[in-house]
Structures are given as structure tokens and as C-alpha cells.
């Protein structure tokens, strides 16, 4: 009994070492019971059913990511009694599902979001709870928080920066150097192209032109390095200004030459081809994020020590760029927003590193403190590819590195660049150049006209 009483004694009493006199046993028991009751009141949800069920819409559909969320949800329920249901869906279905849930009056409580415009629309419609208080606790990389009206509306968990992956062994065979200019890149791509039976058997490089997200993500960072911007600080469309037309024209000419070194079917190529062709030795350069490293490790381990990565460059070798990509958690406005915020805080405090480890290279940490965290570095793949990971880290710490994307262009986070992204104006510019043989001036003019049309629709 005395052991029990000692266990139930208040922390202050236990620390002071005070012992109750033996003649006051009843009073002690009463005090202990009261302390226990107060303790229970102070932590009402611990080991108790809270009758709260949170719904979490997850679009990271890999087995590891799903498992990590389910494990965290089970632990949270054990500790706090709040059930968290994980509903997984492909990324393209996330926004329709979120909209449907809001319209049905049963919004998801938490969701992962992979497209900045969706976060912006939800924030502008008052459907999100700001997470500024949480993001303030850490230092972040550039171009990732996307604050609106002074508040941060999502908790980013990764960058997916697109850069150029290349085959080191093929470079060594041909005594090639990492390119610093477009001319050098083109020369390397040509040198590594292998033709057979009239077909490109191993492409020198791959930059898709299909009207899809993969093209938008991987085929235009050369333009960012060259200084091209879609909108100016007053939201004027400047893609067809004299200066930008000239820059884009240079790129279109370079692209037309690169296109000759690419494998066939660039007009239907997507993420799968960017990964698959590199992993199957069908292309010497591919643009992607760290997912490519994970794919090589899983599908083509013989290539695991034969690749390197470098950012996009401008035509003259003066600037470097990577194409921005990102994902984050949002908390939706619901009857249970407070509980959802509690869960997200707990998840971030306890499972953020575990979550990042579910796609160890692809989920590039946007929080700078993670790069100092030994637990994060301890993942076998991160340890093994430390050189690549450090290169990726340098892209977000190097002040000179240009980080931009079609959907995040412009002075502030806004839906307008996202409309440009989704109308595939930029891939169409490449299609007009290489499939329809239009002049550079016509390609840029058509792009400018379409951008103005879609952003006003």
C-alpha cells in the first residue's frame, strides 16, 4: 500500500522527499486519492476514449508511407484515445475528395496536399486552420511556406526539387565533364546517345513535352536559370516580353537539338518514363527528384553507385536552378480542428523523421534543422547516398540557386500561376516547336496569348 501511495504522491512531494507521519494514514490516503483524481482531470484523454475520430486524407500512397501513418495513428489512439482514420488516395484525387467532403458537410480533418494552388484555394475560402505557430518553431528552406495574408496554411514535409541525374560511368567512358552551359549539356547528351536500327536505343537525355505535370516539372528549369519569369511583381504576364522572348527562343533552339537525342514518345512520356528509362539504361540523363535514387535502389541496384546529380544551368554558365516541388500537411476547418491540430503537433514532434524516412531521398526535408538531426542521417539510404543528399541540401542553402516552378511563379502565392501550370502552356510551346515546326517567335507569342486567356478565365 505504501508503495502505491508513493506512486500516487504528487511530483512535488516526491521530489522534496517529505514523508507523511504514520498516524495520519487515512488523511494520506484521502490526499492520494485527491491527487490521483486531480491528475486524471489534468490529463483527461490519456488512456481514455475521447470519442473523437479524425479523418486523414493521405496522398502518399507508398506502402511505407501508409504504414508509417497507420502506426502513428494506432499509437496516438493508444495514448490519447483519439482514433485517426487514414484514407489514402492518388494525388490527382486529393482535391476533388477534399472539395466533396467540404460540400457534404463532413470535411476531412487533415490532408496531405501536393499542389500549391489547392492550398491557396482552401485558405482563401476559409477552409483551413493556420499552422503559423507550428512552422515558426523552425527554420525553413526558401520557397516552401507560401504564406497568405501573413499566415502559413500548411506544414511542409518535403521538397521535390527536380534536377539532372546522369550516369557517372558513361561520363567516365567518354571523358565527359559535368556541364556548365547549355552547349556542354547538349554536347554530352549527343555523345551519350546510342542509335540502333534507325532508333534511339539509349537516349542522351529526356525532357518530356507531353501536356502533363511531368513536363511542367522537369522541362523548364533551364528557363529559370536563364532568368525567365512568367509574371512580374504586378502580375503582368512577361513571358513574351522582348527580353524573355529572346531567352525562351534560345532555349527552344537548344531543346530542338536535345530532342534529337531523346528516346521516342516524348509526347506521351510522364513520370514513369523519367524513372523507368534511366533505371533500364535507356537514357543517360534524366530529370527527377530523389525518387529516382529510390527507384534505382529498388529496381536497378547495379546503377546505385553509377549516378550523379547536378542542377539545371543557364546558357552561359552563370546561374543554376532547380525546379520546385513540394508537399505539406493541412488542417481543415471542422468541428474537430482543435483535435486535428493536436494530432498534427504530436505527429510532427514524434513522427516527422519517421515520415521522412518513408521516402528517404524523395522527401527532401524543407526544415533546415532536420539536416542537423543524426536520426535523419541514420537511415541506410541517406547514409549511402550522403553525397547526393548533401548536394540536394546545398540547393536550398545556396542563396544563388534559383528555385522556381510554373505554379509558384509570381510575387506572392496565387492561383494564377497554377492556372498556367494546368493549361500546359509551356509543354505546348515545346510541342509547337518540335512537332509543328513553328518559329520561336510564334511559339512564345502563342504561349503569351494563352497565358493571358487562362488567367482571366
Amino acid at each position, binding site marked *: 500500500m505504501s508503495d502505491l501511495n508513493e506512486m500516487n504522491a504528487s511530483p512535488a512531494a516526491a521530489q522534496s522527499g517529505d514523508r507523511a507521519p504514520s498516524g495520519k494514514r487515512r488523511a494520506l490516503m484521502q490526499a492520494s486519492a485527491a491527487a490521483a483524481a486531480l491528475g486524471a482531470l489534468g490529463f483527461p484523454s490519456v488512456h481514455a476514449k475521447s470519442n473523437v475520430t479524425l479523418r486523414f486524407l493521405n496522398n502518399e500512397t507508398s506502402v511505407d508511407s501508409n504504414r508509417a501513418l497507420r502506426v502513428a495513428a494506432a499509437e496516438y489512439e493508444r495514448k490519447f484515445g483519439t482514433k485517426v482514420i487514414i484514407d489514402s488516395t492518388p494525388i490527382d484525387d486529393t*482535391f*476533388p475528395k477534399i*472539395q*466533396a467532403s*467540404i*460540400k457534404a458537410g463532413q470535411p476531412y480533418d487533415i490532408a496531405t496536399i501536393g499542389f500549391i*494552388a489547392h492550398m491557396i*484555394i*482552401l485558405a*482563401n*475560402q476559409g*477552409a483551413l486552420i493556420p499552422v503559423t505557430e507550428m512552422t515558426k518553431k523552425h527554420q525553413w528552406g526558401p520557397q516552401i511556406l507560401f504564406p497568405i495574408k501573413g499566415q502559413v496554411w500548411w506544414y511542409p514535409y518535403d521538397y521535390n526539387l527536380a534536377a539532372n541525374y546522369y550516369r557517372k560511368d558513361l561520363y567516365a567512358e567518354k571523358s565527359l565533364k559535368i556541364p556548365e552551359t547549355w552547349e556542354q549539356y547538349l554536347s554530352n547528351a549527343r555523345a551519350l546517345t546510342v542509335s*540502333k*536500327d*534507325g*532508333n534511339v536505343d539509349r537516349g542522351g537525355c529526356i525532357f518530356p*513535352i*507531353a*501536356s*502533363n505535370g511531368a513536363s511542367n516539372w522537369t522541362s523548364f528549369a533551364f528557363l529559370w536559370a536563364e532568368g525567365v519569369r512568367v509574371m512580374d511583381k504586378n502580375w503582368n504576364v512577361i513571358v513574351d516580353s522582348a527580353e524573355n522572348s529572346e531567352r525562351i527562343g534560345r532555349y527552344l533552339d537548344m531543346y530542338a537539338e536535345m530532342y534529337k537525342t531523346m*528516346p*521516342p*514518345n*516524348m*509526347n*506521351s512520356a510522364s513520370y514513369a518514363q523519367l524513372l523507368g*528509362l534511366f533505371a*533500364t539504361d*535507356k537514357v543517360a540523363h534524366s530529370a527527377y527528384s530523389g525518387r529516382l535514387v529510390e527507384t534505382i535502389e529498388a529496381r536497378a541496384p547495379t546503377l546505385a553507385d553509377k549516378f550523379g546529380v547536378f542542377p539545371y544551368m543557364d546558357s552561359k554558365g552563370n546561374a543554376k536552378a532547380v525546379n520546385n516541388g513540394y508537399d505539406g500537411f493541412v488542417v481543415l476547418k471542422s468541428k474537430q480542428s482543435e483535435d486535428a491540430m493536436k494530432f498534427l503537433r504530436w505527429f510532427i514532434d514524434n513522427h516527422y523523421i519517421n515520415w521522412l524516412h518513408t521516402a528517404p531521398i524523395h522527401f527532401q526535408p524543407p526544415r533546415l534543422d532536420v539536416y542537423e538531426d543524426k536520426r535523419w542521417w541514420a537511415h541506410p539510404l541517406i547514409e549511402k547516398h550522403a553525397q547526393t543528399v548533401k548536394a540536394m541540401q546545398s540547393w536550398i542553402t545556396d542563396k544563388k540557386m534559383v528555385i522556381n516552378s510554373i505554379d509558384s511563379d509570381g510575387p506572392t502565392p496565387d*492561383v494564377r500561376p*497554377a*492556372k498556367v501550370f*494546368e*493549361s500546359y502552356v509551356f509543354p*505546348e510551346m515545346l*510541342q*509547337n516547336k518540335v*512537332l*509543328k515546326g513553328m518559329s520561336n517567335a510564334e511559339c512564345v507569342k502563342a504561349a503569351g496569348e494563352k497565358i493571358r486567356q*487562362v488567367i482571366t*478565365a
Partner: protein
Amino acid sequence: MKKNFAIVSFLLTGLLVVAVVIGIPLLHAMQLSLYKLESFISEPIWVGLDNYARILVDRDFWSAFGNGLVIACSSIALQVVLGIGIALILNQNFIGQSIARGVMILPYLLPTVVACLTIEWLLDGSYGLVKSLLASAGIPMFDWSASRLSATATIVLVSVWIWTPFVVTCVLAGMQSIPRQLYEAAKVDGAGSWHRFWHVTLPGLKPVLTVVVLLRGIWMFNKFDVVWLLTKGGPVNSTETLPVLAYRKAFQSFDVGGGAAVATISFVMLSVVILIYLKLFPLDEK
């Protein structure tokens, strides 16, 4: 009285189902087309007929309309010609006729996504079977997705592959209803096989073909899946059809009102074409 009650109840049930699954969404789409809104949760801004005015002068809309017509007409023509030809063969008595009829229906049972992925893999420029076969003959592989002609032809090819069995089945059923005496009388009159086909079979199939062409026309004009899975409307929108354009606007380009307007105009156009068609080829023709 009891019989009338049953008829009325079935009719009302049917009307209720149509109202719920077609009528209400249609009215909602029409309503959305009168607003400007970026998403389904955005605050709608009343713009009246502005979306229609904008869409009707949009080059993409007319291009999508034209693409839809080309894909629909060429697919239907091929499906009907092939369907009649195959049905004529399957209507003959030969060993394994039942098995041949069973096999013929298989493509129709294939999920569209499977058919499209199969074609994509066959035509893949890096690993495809067609590439290997052409290479063995010393012919370089063509990029099927790079030009309007080859991309459209691929869409038509897949549509014909999947939907011809439907035409075969309908035509085969129609052939069973043509009285044998007509063929025998034609033979007695000295008509050859071509004349028997032209003067007996085709007129006998007219009611079936009227329905088949009508249904295939509606389905092909509204075709979304094959186009989306194979080309997503590319290259440079040259295979984009109205359903794809409507989807793109409403669900991707943050132009829900514009997408709804495209869908509504498309619906009206199709309705007009159907009315004209039914006027020209009445279904209750004796």
C-alpha cells in the same frame, strides 16, 4: 386497372431514377455554367451567359468539337463496316462457329484501361513489340503520339477494337430476324451474293443499324476514357474532344463555370443532332 397501375409505377420509378442520376446533375451543371468559380468550394460569382460567350469564341472549343466529330465518324464508320463484315462471316455455318462467336465478344469485355495500356506498350518506342518487329525488318519506329494523324488513328483503332464486337452482336441478332424466304426468293430470281446482301440483308438490318449508329454516335461523341488514357488530348490539343476539354477546365484549370458551359453546349449540340437523326431515320419505321 391493375395493369395500368403497374405501368405507371414502372414509368414513375424510371423517371425518378433518370431525374436523380441525369436530371439533377444536368441542371446543376447548367447552373454552374452561369457562374465564375475556381473550384467547387469557391464563392460563385454570377456572370450570366458570359461563360457561353467566352467558350463559343474559344478556338480550343471548336477544335475539340471538330476532333470529336472526326474521331466519332471514323470510328463509327469502321465499326459498322467491320461489324457487318464479321457478322456476315459469323452468320455462316462452319465448324467452331460458336467458339468464334464467343471469342469475338472478348474485346468488348476488356476494360478500356487495359486495352489502352496494352496498345501503349505495344507501341512503346523503347520496349514495344511493334518497335522490335519493325527493327527486324530494318524499319525505324514511328512516334504514334507525335502527330495529329497518328494519335487520332490510334484512338480510332482502340475504339474500333473495343466496340466492334458490340456492332457484331447487334448485327448478328438483326440477321436472325431476316426471313430466309427472302434470300431463297432472291436466289430464284437469279440474285448473286452481292445483290442478296445489298437488296435483302442491308434493308433488313436498317432498324438495327439505325439504333447501333445512334448509340455508337452518342457514346463516341462523349468518349472520354480512350482519349484521356492514350493522348490526354495531345499533341497540342489535336485529339482533345469536348468531354476532355470540359474535364480539363472544370477539374484542372480552375474554371468550373467554363467546364460546365462546354458540357452544356456539348449536350445541346448532341441533342440537336439526335433529333435530326431521328427525324431522318425514325425508330418506329415499319
